[in-house]
């Protein structure tokens, strides 16, 4: 309790930034109360467009606004944007290179109470496969807020993956933050834990636990899944000789896959991946309990680290 939710960090920052950049507009799909884009609507009603329950239309309306010189943020649930609107995103954002920002709320398992229909655990895989797309997953509310101007000013489409709830805080407002540049959140030389989104905080906790067991783990945050900071990943893998990836996403196609691809090309390294199994997740009572139940607990990260150390040459 007490930590601001990632969606709120994003939304408040967008309202503030829109005060300095009149080109920012928002599109919504009848989820303004959920995505918190209602804050934008209250402040800038003339720059806010609610198209009703029509995610493909919302993306295409954003495309038109971008062609007309604006910087639209399209607000909706990640599950709908990444799946129902995927063709719009592929054709009209990526292929046509339009400057549309997809604010994908309720990502991962963060909508714990609504179940598998509402979870978005394949979205990173869907989106990172598309040329010209940038995929960003902030670790906490402060980072989401600090990313908003960077996302807006980045020239091209962005998939901005946002959790409904709060995450363990890892980012201090004002710390260096750059699209495409990973962040070493903890130094260590025996293995590297590479994490994204809300899993960065959990990975830092796991690193503390490991330190108590005499294992010195580096923690690298990869907030930009695409373009991937291969230099940092390869340097860390090479320096520590073992890698664990951690993500609130399916094991198929997400951060772990992206890291494995990068290392396979440049620096094959023993690896364990912590993520969601190839199955639909159940409804939960709270997000932390659901994450634990779906194999994303701190103990799962610790266990993966211990396993990969056994495979280390």
């Amino acid at each position, binding site marked *: 309790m007490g930590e601001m939710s990632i969606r709120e960090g994003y939304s408040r920052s967008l309202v503030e930034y829109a005060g300095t950049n009149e080109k920012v507009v928002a599109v919504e799909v009848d989820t303004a109360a959920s995505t918190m884009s209602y804050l934008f609507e209250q402040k800038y009603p003339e720059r806010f*467009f609610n198209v009703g329950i029509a995610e493909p239309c919302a993306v295409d*309306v954003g495309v038109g606004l971008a062609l*007309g010189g604006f910087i639209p943020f399209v607000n909706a649930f990640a599950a709908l944007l990444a799946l129902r609107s995927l*063709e719009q995103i592929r054709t*009209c954002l990526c292929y*046509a290179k339009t400057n549309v920002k997809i604010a994908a709320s309720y990502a991962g398992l963060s909508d714990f109470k609504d179940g598998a229909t509402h979870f978005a655990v394949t979205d990173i895989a869907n989106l990172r496969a598309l040329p010209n797309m940038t995929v960003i997953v902030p670790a906490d509310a402060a980072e989401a807020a600090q990313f908003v101007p960077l996302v807006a000013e980045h020239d091209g489409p962005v998939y901005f993956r946002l959790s409904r709830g709060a995450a363990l805080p890892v980012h201090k407002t004002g710390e260096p933050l750059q699209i495409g540049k990973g962040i070493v959140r903890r130094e260590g030389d025996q293995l590297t834990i590479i994490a994204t989104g809300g899993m960065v905080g959990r990975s830092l906790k796991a690193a503390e636990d490991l330190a108590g067991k005499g294992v010195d783990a580096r923690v690298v945050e990869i907030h930009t899944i695409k373009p991937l900071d291969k230099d940092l990943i390869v340097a860390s893998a090479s320096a520590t000789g073992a890698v664990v990836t951690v993500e609130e996403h399916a094991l198929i196609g997400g951060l772990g896959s992206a890291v494995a691809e990068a290392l396979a090309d440049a620096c094959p390294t023993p690896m364990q991946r912590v993520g969601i199994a190839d199955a639909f997740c159940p409804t939960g009572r709270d997000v932390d309990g659901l994450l634990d139940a779906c194999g994303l607990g701190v103990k799962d990260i610790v266990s993966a680290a211990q396993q990969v150390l056994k495979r280390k040459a």
Partner: protein
Amino acid sequence: MASLTELEIKQLEETARNIRGDSLRFIHNRGAGHPGGALSAAELLSVLYFQTMRLDPQDPAKETRDRFLLSKGHASAALYAALSRRGFFDAAELEHWGEVTCKHQGHPDRFKTPGVEMTSGILGHGVAVGVGLALAARLTKNPSRTYVLLGDGECQAGIVWEGAVTAAKYRLSNLIVIVDLNDVQLDGPVHEIMPMDHMAERWKACGWYVIEINGHNVRQISEAFDLAKEVHDKPICVIARTTKGKGVSFMENQSYWHGNVPNAEQLKQALSELGLEGK
């Protein structure tokens, strides 16, 4: 608006005829393309590009220009014909259409072909993208209008109607959709594949101002666009009744010619019927 002179009508009809001939030559040379829907839209494109829209090929990015979205992107041959004849690029570039080194794509690409406002090809996008463009024009007090050309088969796609109700909600009278209603789609007649009867009523029910015309009559087309400018509280839908494959007897109303290519003999006959043999 002053009505068209007889000379202007003759010129627009001549341009439509040339759009047909160019389209068939481009498709024949490439060995691929979609002749039927290119021929049905020839007069619509002639009036839009040579009469109605404010455009300047010498200043193609001018903010106040009118925008055209070819939502039925498979009619690219007709769009390329109109754009090249309007002076956006040299039609000779299309002699190599289809080769990987030719910049012009099978379906329109906004970065590759000068004058193309938006990449298209997958059906259904034009109305919702047009909504965004029309909203942007309103926000910036830009007098630009957005014209979107749809096929009637395309209207089977649900996103068309998501965009339609959004345009009506925002009363976008700077958005003009034209339905090229030729009643033929890839697999057969539209009224058999998935009937889209009562097309005018559908758009009216969504809150649009509807104008019904003969889509091969350049005077009616021009007057419809003039009338659209007098509408100030609704988006406008021009339902243009057309014939797929118009002007070539063996192509008219035949779904086969949605996406098949005339051979040399068929091209010769088609150009002869169009009065373009040897031109």
